[in-house]
């Protein structure tokens, strides 16, 4: 699970162009991963077991670990580093932590993180652990030591069937995450977080700077105010050939 900023209407960069200016922003769990945590919690609620959440992130990421535990995860491992890691280094740090948790049945990641969107951490984790991997799941059934995985494609859904333990990456829409109750949030504050400092290796894909693409800021034609605008709207629809 990764902590990401809630950016709202506009992307503003820090003066050194290394990051999004987050002084005035809130943070959240990357959306695909929120569904991943929810799914893991549902599996454990119906079949027993334990859900452990793992993040590599700054000290403040504890906030998102607590949110995950309010969703129902039992405990957390926090690899603490204030720097941004590239995908290869992220995967190997996660793998080191996962090895300490063997045996496990399922490793769940997001398909791509909201901010960096490298589409690869889950696949790299799977190779390092020597496990099968299926990505981009919108449907999952776990039973009898196997996972039936549904991946959304243009023509519907492709189905994969893999033996556990396995690595899966999921997409938002897999489920509708619950709103944690107040007691669940209070319980989450008492659940254990195992914080471990980690050192970032030299990046192989090195970020030089971020750029906000030239805005396609448009000057909208105002068709009117309130219901009185309806005739103009219909005229425009007719011009566009969609009415």
């Amino acid at each position, binding site marked *: 699970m990764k902590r990401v900023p809630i950016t709202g209407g506009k992307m503003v960069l820090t003066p050194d162009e290394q990051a999004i200016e987050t002084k005035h922003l809130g943070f959240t769990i990357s959306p695909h991963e929120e569904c991943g945590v929810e799914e893991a919690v549902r599996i454990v609620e119906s079949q027993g077991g334990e859900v452990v959440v793992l993040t590599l992130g700054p000290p403040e990421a504890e906030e998102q670990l607590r949110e995950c535990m309010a969703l129902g995860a039992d405990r957390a491992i926090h690899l603490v580093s204030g720097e941004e890691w590239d995908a290869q280094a992220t995967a190997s740090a996660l793998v080191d932590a996962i090895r300490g948790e063997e045996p496990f049945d399922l490793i769940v990641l997001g398909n791509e993180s909201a901010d960096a969107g490298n589409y690869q951490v889950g696949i790299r984790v799977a190779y390092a652990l020597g496990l099968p991997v299926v990505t981009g799941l919108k449907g999952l059934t776990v039973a009898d030591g196997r996972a039936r995985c549904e991946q959304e494609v243009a023509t519907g859904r492709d189905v994969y069937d893999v033996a556990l333990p396995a690595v899966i990456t999921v997409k938002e829409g897999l489920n509708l995450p619950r709103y944690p109750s107040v007691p669940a949030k209070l319980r989450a504050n008492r659940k254990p977080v195992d914080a471990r400092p980690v050192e970032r290796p030299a990046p*192989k894909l090195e970020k*030089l700077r971020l750029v906000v693409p030239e805005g396609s800021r448009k000057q909208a034609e105002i068709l*009117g105010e309130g219901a009185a605008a309806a005739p103009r709207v219909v005229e425009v629809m007719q011009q566009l050939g969609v009415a």
Partner: protein
Amino acid sequence: MSALVFLEGADELSLQALTLGESLGDVRAVRFDGPYAPAAWAKAIVDAAGDADIIGPGSDRGNEVLAHVAAQLDLPFAANVTEVRGNDVTRIRWGGTLQEEARIHSERKLLTAAPFAFAPSSSPLQAEVLSPSLDGSVTVVDQVAPDSGGKVSLADAKVVVSGGRGVGSSEGFAILEELAELLDGAVGCSRVVTSAGWRPHADQVGQTGTKVSPDLYIACGISGATQHIAGCKGAKKLLAINADREATIFAHADYAVVGDLHEILPAITAELRKARAV
């Protein structure tokens, strides 16, 4: 210098990847028949590539196969690249609302071409078909047809009537449904709406939802967050209906109507019916 380009087919994105490959050196294009098996396909690509750069389309499958290639070779992989200058690349982040300039510390480049960043290649397509060994590898075992209930799909609709928090409730979408049906279009929504359970996630437009490219996108009671715009910037024209004349959505709109969507949408529907009755 040479590059091996993985093509999903003769589709637009694959031909764009081919252009990126051609800009790097001698190109060899490969593709696959048979069931999708990302790990096995990646292995076949690695074996065929020698020490060439490996390029793919910035599609779900392109990114997935390249990530497998990267994991097998333990090399860095830059996804969704828009430009290459030596070992430096520009790539898109945050679903396209932000770009990143990055340096690849590796002799070999593994890249996918960001959608629509390159013109499709016009060279005659002669892709070699690789035959991967599927032995025990993860592969597609079944397919489920989409359950669209006979309606126009969001991704293909010519008109999308999309609602946000301003719609106010699940029942509030009735007036959007009515207009969409009249226009033979589909209903979309923002993430606030799906998180509230007013609409299913399949209706969500945006970075973590569906990307749409209709002739007309009607955004009703949607503020215009970057993650929402990431899903509808492909629309030819955008009409925004919002009560707040300062709303960000107006900066992305071609047409604006200021006011309460609960009055405006029924008025548009009535006007359309009237126009058609003539």
